[in-house]
Structure formats: C-alpha cells, structure tokens
C-alpha cells in the first residue's frame, strides 16, 4: 500500500521504507539534522500510508469507552491516548482515530478488530484509511502557510493544541487538527484521498515563501520524541 501521489514523492527524492504493511516516506535524503531543521521551519509530511480509522453512530461514544478510548465531552477536540493514539472527536456521533506517531503497531487495526467482534449496535466503522489522505504540516511557519489556504483563524491563540476544524482548505473539505510537537506547531490534515495530488501541490505552493519543503516520517519521529 502506498500514497496515491507516490510519484510526486519520488520526484521530490523520497526514500521509502516498509512500515506496517505500507510503503512510507522515511526521508528525502537530506540528512537527519537538515530534515529536522526543515520540519521545524516548515515541513510537509505524507502520512497517508499510516493506519487510521473512524467510528460513527449514535452509540459510538459508549462503544469507544468500552473499547478503552478516553474521549472528552467536547466535539472538535482531539484526545491523546496513553498509547499514543490520537482520537479526534468530530461530533457527538463520530470519531477519527490516528495511529500514534512512532508506534510500530497498527493500533487502528486492533480497534477495528475489537469492533468486528463486539458488533455493537449503533456504531459503525468508517474506512478512513482508504477514504482520507493524511498529511502533516509542521514548523514555525505552518500557521502562516495554512492562512493562504484556509479561512479559519488557526493561530495558536484561537486554535490551541488538540483543536479541530472541519473546514475548507484550498476549497477542499478538510479536517485540521492542531497537534504541536512540543514547541513546534504542527497540524494534521485529513481530506478526500482523491484530492491528494491537488492538496499537496497547494501546500507546497503556499509554503514556498517560507522555504517549506517535504519532510519524511523519520524527522517527525525525531521531533516527536
């Protein structure tokens, strides 16, 4: 399994590694320090091959609790689990689950397996892995770059860590989750996977004035831990 726009990534110099049955961009051959510095300035990472899933339905909250997920009461907030899973509560009846950065386990598959066996009434899976592309924008200029594409005020003052915006980015429906890596601003972007090439090009274009560039999964792990 690989990203829909893997050709673009290859032309940018991507080096792939197998990661949980998928082919993931680990770096762009720029050296560890340089890529980490890039991620701190403005980096764009493709996390589409990594696991993610979703659950929805009127009984979703109850089932999620029984499955061990700790979700707060507020919608449009992301809740970090002890094992690194990030659970984004999109509404009273829907969550999006992102595998923990750095986790070597497909935590999402485990959750789906739990769901399959318990077959809860009123809670259904959402095939996020195949429906939504997953990009991450990192660095001190990430907010400025997003301001060229998105009409929402995503500055940390009004959009703090864990905040979610279900909004339009470059005229495409997108879930934006602020998930800072320590002091480094960072955003998860999830959107229709058929728009991956388009969205990637828009983000690259928006980041040019801030000297943004693609970064690999490895640099995120370096900054995350």
């Amino acid at each position, binding site marked *: *399994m*690989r*990203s*829909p726009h893997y*050709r673009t990534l290859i032309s940018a110099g991507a080096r792939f590694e197998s990661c949980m049955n998928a082919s993931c961009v680990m770096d762009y051959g720029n050296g560890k320090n340089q890529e980490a510095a890039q991620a701190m300035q403005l980096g764009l990472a493709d996390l*589409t*091959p990594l696991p993610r899933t979703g659950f*929805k*339905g*009127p009984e979703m909250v109850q089932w999620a609790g029984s499955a061990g997920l700790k979700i707060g009461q507020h919608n449009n907030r992301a809740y970090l689990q002890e094992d690194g899973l990030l659970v984004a509560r999109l509404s009273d009846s829907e969550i999006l689950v992102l595998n923990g950065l750095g986790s070597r386990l497909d935590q999402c598959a485990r959750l789906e397996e739990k769901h399959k066996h318990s077959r809860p*009434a*009123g809670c*259904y899976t*959402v*095939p996020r*892995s*195949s*429906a*939504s592309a997953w990009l991450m924008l990192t660095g001190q200029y990430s907010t*400025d770059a997003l*301001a*060229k*594409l*998105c*009409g*929402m*005020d995503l*500055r940390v*003052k*009004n959009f703090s860590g864990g905040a979610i915006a279900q909004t339009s980015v*470059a*005229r*495409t429906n997108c879930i934006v989750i602020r998930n800072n890596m320590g002091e480094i601003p960072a955003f998860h972007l999830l959107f*229709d*996977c*058929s*728009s*991956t*090439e*388009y969205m990637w090009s*828009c983000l690259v*274009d928006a980041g040019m004035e801030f000297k943004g560039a693609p970064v690999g999964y490895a640099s995120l792990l370096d900054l995350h831990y």
Partner: protein
Amino acid sequence: MYTSPNRLPAPAGRLVDHENTINFSFEGTQYTGLAGDTIASALAANDVWLLSRSFKYHRPRGVLSMAGLEANTLVQVDNEPNVAADRRKVTQGLQVSGQNCIGSLANDQAEKISLVNRFLPVGFYYKAFFQPKGAWQNIWEPIIRKFAGLGQVHPDTPHGYYDKQYLFSEITVVGGGPAGMSAALAAADAGAEVLLIEQETVIGGSLNYGRFDTEGTLAHTLHDELVTAVTDHSNIEVMTDSVCNGYFADNWLPVIRGHRMYKLRTKELILAPGKMEQPAIFRNNDLPGVLLGTAAQRLIRLYGVRPGKQAVVLTAGDDGYATALELLENGVNVTAVADLRQSFDATPLYKKVLACGISIHKACTVYEALPDKHTRGIRAAALRQLAGIGQCGNEAWRYDCDLLCVSVGFMPSYQLALHAGGKLKHDEAVSGFSITGLPACIHLAGAVNGKNELGSVIESGRQAGQAASRKLGLAVPGAAASRPLNPISYSSINHPWPIFPHPRGKEFVDLDEDLQYLDIIHACRDGYDELELVKRYSTVGMGPSQGRHSALATARVVAEETQRTMSEVGVTTARPPLHAENLAVIAGRSFEPERLTAMHHRHLEAGAHMVTAGQWWRPAYYGEPQHADRWILKENLAVRNNVGMIDVSTLGGLEVRGPDAAEFLNRMYTFSYSRQKTGTLRYLLMTNPAGRIIDDGVACRLDDEHFYITATTGGVETVYRTMLWWNAQWRLDVDVTNVTSAYAGISLAGPKSRAVLQQLCTSTDLAPASFPYLSVRTAQVAGIPARLLRVGFVGELGYEIHAPSLQGEALWDALLKAGREFGMQPVGIEAQRLLRLEKGHLIVGQDTDAMTTPHEARMTWAVAERKPFFVGGRSLQAARRYPSNRKLVGFSVEPEQDEVPGESNLILDGDSIAGHITSVGYSPTLNKIIGMGYARADTEPGMLIQIKLKSGCRQSVQVVEMPFYDPQNKRQEM
C-alpha cells in the same frame, strides 16, 4: 555628486535616502532620483511636471494631490498601464512613459481635439451616436474604441505571481495617521490585539508632512512620540504599504499589499482614513503647477522636492498660511496669498505670513491660471476681488508664478464608512460632513469623525480605541488628561463655494473626465437633476479617482442649479473597490480542486485523453484526439466482442447501515427494498419531492442491516446531503456514510470478463448459477479485498469491482495483466456512453433534465407505486392526472447522411418544439446512428419524428423500440 534642480537637502525628504540614487527613464529620457522617491517626486525633483494627458481633451496634467487620488498621474511602467506615478516607487532601470497621447507627451497631436470641445457637450454620446441607423457599429464604435482607454495592455506581458492570504484581528485600525495611531494605542493598552493598516510606506499620516503651527515643530514632536509608541507596542501589528480596498459584510476587508490580497476578518473596526483636500474650480485649474496645499507639503517633507520657484496660494483658512510658510522656508518665493474669506480672526499663522511681507488679498480668488506654452504648466495667476458668492469683481491682480497652491477645504475619506452602510450628512452651517448609521462594530476616528483640530483628532482616536476595546469585553483605563496643543484651528473645514465660472470655460469640476462647470449645469438643464442621474449622464465621478475631487463640487453645483440644499442633494454612492485594483490581484492564486482516481497515472501512461467530470479527471478514450472516433469504435467493439475495463471510481458510494436501512431506502428511492435479498442488487431511482428524477444507481444488500449503494458521479454529494436532511426528520435508526473515495471501481465488461476475473478470484465461484446477474459478493481479487457487483450498464456480461482506493492501481495492474491473453483493453467513458446508449440505458443529467419524471423517461418499471411513501411519490400520483406531453424515445438513422443528428438538436412537432435529442452516436454493432430524445407523448415505434439539424434543415427519422441492442438481455445475463 547627485544634483537635481528642485531637490532640497535633508532633513527635507523623510522618505528618501539622499545618499542612494536611482536611475530611470521617462519618455525615453534618463533621470536620476533617490531611493524612496515616487516616479512623480523624482520627476518633480528634475523639474518635470507634465505626467499625462487628460482622457478627453488631451490637456496636459501633472501632480495634484501627491496621494495617488487622481488620474493625472497615471503612467505606463514597462508593461503595466495606469500606474499612479505619485505612489509607485522608482527602481533602478525603470522605464516609464506617458499615456493617452499621439506622438509624445509634450507634443500630443490629439490635443487639437480641445479646439472642438464646444461640439462635444455633456451627454453628446447619447445625442450623437444612435443615428443614423448602423452608424454606431460602422462609424462611431471603431473611432471611440481607438480613443478609449489610457494605457496599453501588452498580451505578451509575463505572468506575475499573485496570491491571497487570510488574516485575522480583534481590532483593525484603517489609517496610520494621528487618529489611527492614537486609536491603536488605546486599544492595545486595553489588551486588544490590534492590526494597523496604512497605505503609505510609513505610519504617521499627516504628521509626516503637514504643518500645524508657526514653528513647524509640533508635527515632528507628535510624530516621534506616537510612532515610537505604536512600533514598540507588542499588541500592535503594523501593515504599511497596504490598502484596505473595501468593506464587506461581517467585517470582511480586502487588504492589498503588493501582489497579495489579504482577506481580513476583524471583530471591531476603527476607521481613521483621514480627509481628502479639495480643489477649487477656476479656469485652467487642471494644469501642471496647480497643486493642492497638502501636495506641496508632501513633496517638501516626504520627498525633499521644492514644488516650484514662485508661488501663489489660494486659501480659505489656516491651512493655506501653513502651506505658504512651508514654501517660504524651503526656498519658494511666495508672492501672494488669496484668501476667499472676507473677514477672519488673525491667527498666529496668518500673522507670521503677513510678517514675512507676503501680499495677502482678502475676499479674493484665483480667477484664472495662465498657461505656459513652453513648460505646459502655468506662468501666472490672475486674481480677482470677490463681489459675492462665486462672483468675481473687476479689481484684479496678476502674479507671475509656476506654482499655485490651493487650500480651500477637505472632504472626509468617507468611502469605507459608506461601504459599511454609513450615510454622509452635510452640515450647512460649517460646510462640513458627518457620517451616521454605521454598524455598532465600526468606530470612526479623526477627520472622518468630523474632528479636524489636531488635539481633538488624537482624542477622537483614543475614544474610538477604547470603545472598540469595551465591545470586546476588555477593561479600559481611565481617561488620560489630554495635552493642550496649539495647532491650526478650524471654524469651518470647507469654504462653501470655491467655484468661479469663467466666460471662456476650462474650469474643471472633474479632471478625470474633463468635465467643466457648464457640463454639470447643462446636465441639470437636460433634466437630470438628481445627483445619481447627473453622474450617469455626464460620467462625473466615474473616472479613476471615483469622485474624490469632484463629488463635493458637483453636489454644490447641482444644489445651486436645482435650488436645493446640499443635504437634499446628497452625494453619490460609494462602492468597493476604494482604489483601482490590479485584476491580477483578484485573479491570482485561486483554487480549482481536482480529484484523481487511483488509476489516473495508469490512464496517462496508456495515452488516455483525459476530460473533466465535475472535479474528477476521467479518460475519454485511449489515443490521440485527432483519431478519437477510431479509438471509441475500437473500445466499443472490444467490449462487445471481447473484454474491456473501465475506471468507474468516480461513481458515488454510500454505506447505509442500521436496523432501518431497508426502510430508509424505501423512502429515499422509488423502488422497493424491504424484500431485497442479501447478496443481490437492485436498481435505484431517486426523485425529488416534485417527482423529478435526480439520481440513480444500484443498491447492494450486504446483510440485513447493511446496503452499499452507488450514485452518479455528479450526484453523490447531493444524494448524501439529501439523505441526511430527510433522516434528520424521520429519525430512522440508520447511518449513512459517504465512501466514494474509499473505493476504487473497475468495470470489467464483455463476454470474456468472467474468464479474466476468474484468474484473480480463485476462491469465489463466478459461475452464473453461483453468482448470477444482479448479485453482489465480497471476495479477494489478486489478494485485494473487494466487492463484486454483477451489473450490466453496457449490456454485456460484466462485473464492477470495488476495492480500497489505495490499492486501486495494484488492482488495475493485476486485471490488465490477467486480461492480456484475452486481448483486454482499457475503455474510456466515450465508448461507455455509446455502449449504454445501444442498450438504451439513460444517464441522469444527460437524458433527463430538471423536469423529467419517471413516466417521461419510461422508467415507471422502477417505481413501486404501492409503497406507502417515497420522496416524490405524492407528486407522481398527482402528475398522473395531468399526463405529460413528452416522452423519451429511441430513433435510428442510416449512417450515410450528409448531416447527421447531434445532441441538443430540436425534435419538432410541426412548428413547435416537442423536445430535443439527449444522446446520439454511431453504433458500430448496429451500423446505424442511434439516439434518444424527447418527442410527443403519443409517439410510438414506427412513426417518423422531425429533427431540426444544426444547419437548420429538417430531417425525418424513424422511432424505434429500445433497447437497440440485445432486447432479450441475454448477453448481460449469461
């Protein structure tokens, strides 16, 4: 060593770097300016004052305001037309030229047109060009087009990069003058996040260039104090060189800086844009050398340019005396001041000018500026004693001068406030304006709030800043003691009538449009006595300056002519944009989303000609466009005789899950789904509440409580939205999830499709008995989990394979490899459309329109009439009482025709229109041209219908039974 005739030494020239020179050219001549100069200031320093030619009479024009407010300073800069020379900075090697002239700017051949100006009265367009018949198109329009426009657009202009960015602020202050800075500081001190927008390159506003006291030091002191406080304040962000170009609902402001438009949202807005100095109306008031007083001061203090050698000042208040002092102190010989007022208090400024020995003429005006034929500027000012309002007496003086400064009044910069819904109200007593009726989130500060004395301007800003902060719920500190200032005082901001008609005319009310005093009078006398009508009839205020210098004078003239007050006449409407904006700013970096299927690059590699379907890119056919017919034919025959694969990923996909899933589909679609068995497919037809067809697809029942349904490419978003909308009311226990992008879809069709699929699908029995037509299975295809749908859209044995989109390309590759031995080939949507036409299957949106009922489309077989309810059912019941007068029919034509029917050709009923052709094409299988279209409802197979071809000829074609191909459905059910 750099020298230029009019350059003043530092400290004059706050914005220029006296050590850093810039070389540029104007009209082919090389000049040297300073870094920080505008084109106009650099030319002025070189004693070049002629910048342009006027729009209509090609009169010489130069700087008037030095603030980018009028058309006088528009020049061509390289490939860019209509650049304001008094705003654009000079850069190394810049090539600048004049516009709108025949020959050179100095010797414009078109200038002769002014000799016939009496034959070109106001409204002559309307009076002259409508006759004789045909004259407009053949005579007038070509002439006018030749003269229209100012600069030149070059088609080979290189593309620039322009874009947009969103911006947010709690409080936005527009205008970085004393009021704006004071407002920003008050709001920031209260804890608000403040964005201060200033169109100049530095903040400070009039404190940068204005003179407010006899010593000329007050502005400097205040400037340093306020600017330092603003720039040092952590809560204030300053955007200079930025123009707030309009106000839109919900505090949305377009702010343009360079090549970018910022889309600003602010919670509270403080408008402090200041005021615009107004010209006086006298003969030759438009010539280079006639400057507004503030323009002269800007030239001196901002750019270090002496605005002339010998000057006369026309004034109606202290501003003129301040200008006179400023000129004197910078080497200009001021010979006279003409003051329109009969009597006034002797202010310190007046006394100082008098003490300098300058002649001051009270109750006196400039009657005429005398042109200098050599310089194209002025050589003298003719003064007359006033005999009454606007009336000149016989006593006259003449003063030689090359500079005539006018300081007779100001208008508030009201435009943004009026965009926001404010009303401009005139106060007859002081000839001033006030603005009322603004939304509560907008606050006015400074001159736009009717404050003109410097102390009250600053206090007004402070109050506005505090008011805005309070609206945000911030605590506002107590009022600070305002410091006493002793600047210019105003008993009135405007002289009520600085208008002096001349028997020989040329006293311009609107310089952009070359409109003279009598033009406005004649417009009124032609019956256009309302200001908005005068504007449209005469075009006053419709030029680049948008009435900034003409609106007040026009309103006064109209009021006088129609015997009304200024309040009754009002002013014309102000609409965005505030300043002329580059179209590139609007056009730049817009977003056009595109969607690609998982197999998109495989299509490109196979040589597909791609076309758009909404946001999607789809392969039309595989091959070069010049041989499109050949490829479509080949792909068609591959499916009929062999096997083909079609990318159908763009089809909508929805999961409908829950105990009430079947009941939900029963209500949403016309067919019945309650008894649909698990593992089967059923056709879906959706109508809207009016009973009109809006979508179709198939429903796959995966288990009792789970349907996977498809929808059309263009319709799925509407279908999904509609479903959520209805179930918000029905509250059925069902969940609907749009999974369109989660699945890649490949349609494998043709008599050999089973054999191809079986190779990759070894654990699933594809035999007809195990997997019959209209059934669904989940299976592994080449190790990829998939849903297999046995459908027959193209009328052959076929399977749709729906698999996770990230594995779509791998699935495509595997199928292509498996099909190689069967001669399988990819098929585009053009062939698919033809194949389904042969089968008589309609495409919603192509073969239906917004009014098509199932009955008209011959789809009543898909309507379960005995169901208690479905959306549109009641309308269809009612429609039965009023039978439609059209229905969809099939027709065929022999292919050997000079002209064949095309899509959208009309189908006639006598001389009336019965309908149109919705689909048509050449069927290689039938060797006929076949088509569908709407004809009279009583049309039956065997009858002839008349088609009006593209050429206008009529052709009779025979109606035939549908489907055209395999009417027994044997091939798709094999």
